[in-house]
């Protein structure tokens, strides 16, 4: 990948990290509040299903995770395993697609 491409990859990872920081915080706080509030699984699903807000929030969460995590793995593969180039990029892209598919499956399960 060209240096300019590498810089864009870096920018994408930083930008998604910033969004993920907010998403993870909201997710964890919601989780703790729900558990301490004694909400059942059915009660939680009752609030999330059909909610455009929660659907949008978790869709953004999944997209950012699907971009951020493979780029991090790509760096680890390059630096720790000296695995660089198209094969490494393809493997990380495939991992990103898996995260995206599984993530959207989970979003659909709790919001549709």
């Amino acid at each position, binding site marked *: 990948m060209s*240096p300019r491409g590498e*810089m864009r990859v*870096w920018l994408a990872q930083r930008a998604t990290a910033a969004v993920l920081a907010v998403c993870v915080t909201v997710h964890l706080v919601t989780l703790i509040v729900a558990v301490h509030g004694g909400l059942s699984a059915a009660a939680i699903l009752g609030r999330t299903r059909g909610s455009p807000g929660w659907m949008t929030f978790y869709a953004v969460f999944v997209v950012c995770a699907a971009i951020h995590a493979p780029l991090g793995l790509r760096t680890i593969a*390059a*630096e720790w395993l000296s695995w660089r180039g198209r094969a490494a990029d393809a493997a990380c892209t495939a991992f990103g697609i898996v995260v995206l598919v599984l993530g959207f499956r989970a979003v659909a399960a709790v919001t549709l």
Partner: protein
Amino acid sequence: MPRPEQLLHTRVWRGGTDGQFQSYDVPRQESQTVLDVVTWIQRRVDPSLAYRFACRVGMCGSCAMTVNGLPRWTCRTHVARVAPDDRLEIAPLANLPIVRDLVVDMREFFDKWREAKGQFVPTATRHDPIARVCPDSPARRAADAAIQCIGCAVCYASCDVVAWNPKYLGPAALNRAWTLVRDERDGERRQRLSAVVGDAGCHACHTHTLCTERCPMHLSPTTSIAGLKRAAAIAALRGEL
């Protein structure tokens, strides 16, 4: 103050990459530096010991070695500070090919300064009036904070990313590029930013800050590299890169 009969148990790397440590007992002296120890061995015990030094006052950057596991400028490193138990292990700098004994090949280190476009490119000629640079401007302050590098390669030998990615330009070359990016007289800012972005450039830095921790001149290459990342991002968003 050390006693006259007190000895410093010193292990010095001898040979090339496949060499080994050799032991020497060196008399302790007051205000003794690590370079004094190496020089004593070379002058009194084994004249074939190869090492590099020039100024002996912390200006030339040629005497850096690995001292008890950490890269240091040996001419300004007092034995009392790094070997409280009178044991000293002196090896060549890490992350650079060993030539012999304590001498490393510095070519790749300085080649990377060139790759990072570390040369000033003037926008004026000698016939133009002298540029008036405000010393208090933010750009000049940023450049001044990074400009006193002596090229000793202590940062380069400290950097984990250099060890992982041999193409990485390293803290010193990127620090140099940053001083020029912030120099309002320089004419190749865009080309320089293009040279220092990407996997082998500033974006490979993990901000471990070992370069900043160990720089004998107390510079902060980490800050310079962060500045390059910021400048490159702004240039990219403006469509200049």
